[in-house]
């Protein structure tokens, strides 16, 4: 280990390459990672928008109508379309990574990564269908 001077107990200075501020632009994989992290902001916005919708419903028909008018403004539609794109990107990249964390052994065999990811995507489709049915149907 090093002390505050960066030297080891053997008076050997450790080599620690400096990480540039724009390290995430050096490689495509780093950029994809940073975009995935940033897409969490869009996920957060989607939750806030949903909570605002729920609050307007609780406050009665007038408040709900006002919320719908606010949500139908062009700039709000644009924000939500951008947010949707980021949320889909976030979900797809995250579900693709899920098999790396979840290892399932069935009857002495490891479940293929495609199956683990497929279960996630399947659950996503089912949940979306239920929500669509509740809203539209």
């Amino acid at each position: 280990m090093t002390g505050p001077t960066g030297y080891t107990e053997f008076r050997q200075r450790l080599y620690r390459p400096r990480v540039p501020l724009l390290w995430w632009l050096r490689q495509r994989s780093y950029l994809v990672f940073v975009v995935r992290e940033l897409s969490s902001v869009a996920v957060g916005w989607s939750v806030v928008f949903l909570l605002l919708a729920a609050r307007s419903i609780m406050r009665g028909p007038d408040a709900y109508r006002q919320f719908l008018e606010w949500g139908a403004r062009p700039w709000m539609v644009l924000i939500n379309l951008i947010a949707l794109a980021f949320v889909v990107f976030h979900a797809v990249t995250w579900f693709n990574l899920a098999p790396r964390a979840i290892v399932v052994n069935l009857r002495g065999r490891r479940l293929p990564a495609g199956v683990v990811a497929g279960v996630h995507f399947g659950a996503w489709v089912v949940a979306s269908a239920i929500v669509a049915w509740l809203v539209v149907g």
Partner: protein
Amino acid sequence: MIRDLVVEITDFMAKLPRITPWLVNDHEPPPDTEHLQTPLELGEYKQFSMCINCMLCYSACPVYGIEQDFLGPALIALAQRYNLDSRDEGAHERIEVLTAPEGVWACTFVGECSRACPKGVDPAGAIQRAKLAAATQSLKSFLLPWGTR
């Protein structure tokens, strides 16, 4: 990597003992017997035992470049190698180190460590599995505080 075949390993070696990189087993079998494992038990950890300490994963990891205290991909993969070994009983000792701020939670899953690994060890996968194990352990101890560790 400093130069070809010159690898900075000092920090790795200094942190190495913290993850208890050996088999912890208080119930050793008698000396004249072997501790047999099934192919499935071997397969659980074999991938993580293939590390050759080349430090390429440390070079590829931006978190390690920024956070000097981070244990790093290879060390956590090594901890998982022992945690997943059916002969080992030291997972509860290692979890303290792995769940410390400089442990698994510092990893943001860039995944470049696994792409850089020449032996297909997948340290990023090991870290995510350790995170899941730690979260499951925390949930269990919260829901069943009287249960065993």
